[in-house]
């Protein structure tokens, strides 16, 4: 079967994010960008399913600025077979909303007819945790979010999900959308030969207009502000002082 893996180009998780002085957003000029960490896990899972003989073809899809082709090259170097880039903006500061992303992904799915879409649970920039669920709804497919284990069995998949009280296992009919959580696997690094090979893999470029999808935002960003900061308190010398402070000063014991 065929699998589609949506991968998002986001600020690297190690970068200290700074809010722009004029409150219009965060500063993304000249900062290190990477593949969303959850999407690396999604790519890895697709590759493992391919290695297990369950999956024949992996198509990585990214939506955003032209530079997202680097993210797609990373997916190809890890082991995806081909890639589709939908250039939706030329402004690195413009983030497409999950609803628009889901509509574009639906259009790709309609063309590609995969049996599964494996995406990240959450993009670490907008922290929305929405695209997979939205795509599944638009397609009328089953959904399995926050996956920590995926087993494909015939025309269904058994997925273990990370939920608030522990773990839940469900069985979803294929085709399905699966969103992955942190414990699903440990993504591989692309080897140098594979990075070279990835340069020759097909990467198709499209625009939202090619799919006839309206990507205008539904939410207007009114402002972006620094969070309230917390200043460092005091160092205590020992446990006795700590207990005394918690009792007498903070009043929490």
């Amino acid at each position, binding site marked *: 079967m065929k699998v589609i893996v949506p991968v998002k180009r986001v600020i690297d*998780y190690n970068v200290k*994010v700074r809010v722009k002085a004029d409150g219009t957003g*965060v500063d993304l000029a000249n900062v290190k960008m990477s593949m969303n960490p959850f999407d690396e896990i999604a790519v890895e899972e697709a590759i493992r399913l391919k290695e297990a003989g369950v999956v024949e073809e992996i198509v990585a899809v990214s939506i955003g600025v032209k530079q997202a082709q680097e993210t797609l090259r990373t997916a190809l170097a890890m082991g995806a077979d081909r890639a589709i880039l939908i250039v939706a903006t030329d402004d690195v500061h413009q983030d497409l909303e*999950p609803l628009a992303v*889901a509509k574009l992904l639906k259009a790709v799915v309609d063309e590609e007819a995969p049996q599964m879409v494996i995406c990240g649970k959450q993009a*670490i*920039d907008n*922290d*929305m*945790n*929405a695209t997979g*669920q*939205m*795509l599944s*709804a*638009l397609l*009328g497919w*089953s*959904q399995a*979010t*926050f996956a*920590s284990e995926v087993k494909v069995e015939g025309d269904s998949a*058994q997925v273990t*999900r*990370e*939920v*608030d*009280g*522990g773990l*839940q*296992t*469900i*069985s979803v*009919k294929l085709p*399905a959308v699966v969103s992955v*959580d*942190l*414990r699903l696997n440990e993504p591989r690094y692309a080897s140098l030969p594979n990075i070279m090979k990835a340069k020759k893999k097909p990467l198709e470029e499209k625009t939202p207009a090619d799919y006839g999808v309206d990507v205008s935002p*539904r*939410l*207007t960003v*009114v*402002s*972006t*502000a*620094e*969070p309230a900061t*917390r200043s*460092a*308190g*005091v*160092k*205590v010398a020992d*446990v*006795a002082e*700590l*207990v005394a*402070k*918690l009792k007498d000063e903070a009043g*929490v014991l």
Partner: protein
Amino acid sequence: MSVLLIAELSGGALALDATAKALTGAKQLGDVTVLVAGEGTDDAAAEAATLDGVSKVLHADAAIYGHGLAEPLAALVVSLAGDYSHIVAPATAAGKNLAPRVAALLDVMVISDVTGVVDGDTFERPIYAGNAIQTVKSADATKVVTLRTANFDAAPTGGSAPVETIAAADDPALSSFVEDKVQESDRPELTSAKIVVSGGRGVGSEENFALIESLADTLGAAVGASRAAVDSGYAPNDWQVGQTGKVVAPELYIAVGISGAIQHLAGMKDSKVIVAINKDEEAPIFQIADYGLVADLFDAVPALKEAL
């Protein structure tokens, strides 16, 4: 304006704390109807009706709603949506599973993890692991919102709203429940506990994690963990605190053997008092701790337990 609040359930029982906290946010948006959809939920519906400020409880009891599967629940919520300006759920695993699906079916953009309600269209939410707070205004006809419970006080009980039984909606029959692995515990729940004791990679092993748990028990606290501790198998996944785990804001948060990565801070920096125990005096956690103790946790934690 009228609001449909999706009650949080846990094994058929009302998850009172999450529901009551989300209710406080929902009340800022209008008149609140609570939807209790599950299996064997008569008590849950009756309890939801006692929450102060609830106008009505809609009760849908059917086997298809028994395990929180997103597709049948979303179909039910969408069938009710016409009557409401806002559809609200707590930003729990269940709420996050459901709300975006509902939003997409209504062709509206979901607004996730809201920490503040400005007005009926305008909401505050953290982005970039809480490194920035964004205020967004929605132009959609129906607003679908998840509320971060740590930012809202629980609404009290004392009300007596009518409970109306409603029929189940069509079942899309796309997925089925297999099993739950739920840890039974007498400890308070992580997201509602007054005190949380969390352990990190520094704790070193699953066996050593008993040290963290026993300190928590002495304090009547819930136990949390960093991602590193969970990934290493010292603690179960549902103890993870942080950007992609649970968000907590207790009176007292004690971080033991946790370095203080931004992704961890995202889940606990709104705690009232933060204590850090770490042997590295340069650990970033000390930059936000009210009380920092530079010590080996294997000395400090037993001593602390002793001193309490």
